[in-house]
């Protein structure tokens, strides 16, 4: 017991010592959670449905990014890209990953959800359909690509200490991941808040029947939410691969659980809640792993989720997508 107390104190010391490094790591992890969480929250906001196959939308995106590098002839161990060539490669990979993810999300909506919706099936039926679709996509990739991880080539030099953030040395890929994620989040938020299509999404989220009477095409709005969720997941897929650099058929599972948790933590159905939940979960995991040991980080994260839900059953920002405003 004394040993445990001593090691707990040692770990606190380490946590204090490495605080800013852990903060940067936590933000990087949280950025990916948040981008994927947006997909869960968008679909939930409009359909009141948890799209459990969203983790597979992410997984397909990672393979999209991998295929993009292959199409460009980039191999593991190739010289690093710099300048415009690098920007070009990143943009191309990003677009391909987004196209793969968004395509998967649209097909899912078409095949797994719309037929059920048209027949007026219960939400529970759609949930089962989601879980089935998730298994089907994942296993299809396992059969096609094999069950071993495939390496993703390194695209740019991950210079250690590109700059320092307080006393943390920040790697180049951290900057790209956190920066890229923030840009995408702001873009999505502005799209939903300010454009006509975004207004349609908010209208359907608020009251689908009334929105339909006002001339909103509900099928198109639903497709649009899946499309947006897919695009965010595709972006997350590329950013994730820049750091992890390997993918396989079940890469989405754990991440999907975490991203869903982030969405619930922030208040499901709420875009800004998903962002807050994602970053918060990333930070809590990062600090918790040091304070309690890596094997405890998930437990710490879920205990915090349960505690938050006890006091705020609708999550931290607990509003619906419809009422989320600037």
């Amino acid at each position: 017991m004394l040993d445990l107390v001593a090691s707990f104190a040692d770990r606190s010391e380490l946590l204090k010592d490495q605080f800013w490094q852990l903060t940067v790591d936590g933000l990087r992890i949280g950025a990916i959670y948040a981008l994927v969480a947006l997909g869960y929250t968008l679909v939930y906001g409009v359909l009141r449905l948890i799209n459990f196959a969203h983790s597979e939308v992410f997984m397909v995106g990672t393979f999209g990014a991998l295929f993009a590098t292959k199409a460009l002839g980039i191999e593991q161990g190739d010289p690093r890209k710099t300048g415009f060539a690098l920007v070009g490669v990143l943009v191309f990979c990003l677009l391909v990953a987004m196209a793969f993810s968004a395509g998967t999300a649209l097909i899912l909506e078409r095949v797994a959800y719309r037929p059920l919706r048209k027949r007026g099936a219960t939400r529970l039926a759609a949930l089962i359909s989601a879980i089935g679709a998730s298994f089907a996509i994942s296993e299809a990739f396992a059969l096609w690509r094999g069950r071993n991880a495939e390496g993703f080539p390194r695209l740019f030099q991950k210079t250690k200490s590109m700059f320092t953030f307080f006393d943390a040395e920040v790697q180049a890929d951290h900057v790209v991941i956190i920066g890229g994620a923030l840009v995408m989040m702001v873009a999505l938020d502005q799209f939903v808040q300010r454009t006509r299509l975004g207004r349609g999404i908010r209208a359907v989220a608020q009251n689908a029947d009334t929105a339909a009477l006002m001339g909103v095409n509900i099928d198109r709005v639903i497709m649009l939410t899946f499309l947006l969720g897919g695009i965010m997941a595709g972006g997350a897929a590329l950013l994730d691969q820049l750091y992890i650099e390997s993918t396989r058929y079940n890469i989405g599972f754990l991440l999907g659980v975490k991203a869903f948790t982030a969405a619930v933590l922030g208040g499901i159905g709420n875009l800004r809640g998903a962002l807050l939940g994602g970053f918060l979960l990333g930070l809590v995991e990062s600090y918790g792993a040091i304070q309690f040991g890596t094997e405890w980080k998930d437990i710490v994260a879920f205990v915090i989720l349960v505690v938050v839900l006890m006091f705020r059953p609708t999550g931290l920002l607990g509003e619906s997508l419809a009422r989320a405003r600037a």
Partner: protein
Amino acid sequence: MRKWLRVLAPVAALAIVAAACGDDDDDDGDATETTAAGGATAAGTDTTAAGGGGGTATCEGIAIAFFGAQTGESAALGLNESRAVELALDEHNEANPDCQVEYKVFDSQGDPAQAPGLAQEAVNDESIVAIVGPAFTGESNAANPLFDAAGLPAITPSASNPGLSTQGWTIFHRAIANDDAQAPAMAQYILEDAGASTVAVIDDNSDYGKGLSELVVAGLEEGGATVAVTDSIDPAAQDYSATVTQIEAADVDAVMFGGYYEAAGRLTKQLRDAGVDATFISGDGSLDPLFIENAGPEAAEGAILTAAAFYSPEGYEGGEDFGSKFTESSGEAPGLYSAEAYDATNFILAAIDAGNVDRASILEYISTETFTGITKTFKFQESGELDGPPAIYASTVENGELVGVGQIGA
């Protein structure tokens, strides 16, 4: 002409068996002579290992099963072994037209949760007279009690946790040295060859990884080194930055990882990206080309991977020949434990060729007899461990390829 042969062959074979059985009966009658006959049989089986026996063995409706991962995270090791089992059986069946031993496979995915169900299936299949496997420690703990209750003999080519031989399973045999031997050799390598005084020891929370890591920690502390970081990572997770941060902060000379190749590869990459250039050393679970695929060739460079076997069978005498046969039959190059699985299968086949065609007599044979394969001479102690001093070998990554360093800790 062929028809005649088909009719005549079994008759001739029967006659031979009848003669052989008569001999056996005599031997059984005289206890002192059994050992001598055993020695002679073992000498005879050398030919089997080299290329297929005398062709006189007879048996019917029996099978040898491989038990281990064919799919899933850790399938590569399982496939290295199952392909060797198939090769040994093909060679045997070609040389012995009257003793066709069938190959069966139980794909556990390396998952202890699936092992009991599959083990029961194997036990219920009466044609299965012996098991090669289970390949990993976790599934061995789950499956071996069932095999033991049914008296179904097993030789594992790779499960290396020392605890397996202390469970009192009479059916358990291990074709390699256990982690008790691997861990001190790793500790000695870290202390002497790598010259490390502060070390981080990480595991993947598996029976195997935790067991190996704990033993290495004990060896390092005994040798006067400081174990500055101990941590467990989740092999299903992708991001190990919290562990990397701890290792980076402790400024260690060496990082030891107990676990399998995928997590080992990702951990190595993330360590190198964070600027940690400490020697990376891991055990047999990581000794696979997929370690390099996961780490990337640059991060993998110079990593030390140890095992109770050579990575490539070319290291063994007669291994060259085995390598080309293996590649020809399976279309893939042999890997870690391929040669051990081949030897284990041939030991069982030697028992069958000596007239033992049921579980009990095969168990008796492999538990008491001696067999010389391509990797070593096999003689099992009562616990199921090999007799004689254990051998541990190290490999490293050079220019993106696994190359042997040689025996360590001896």
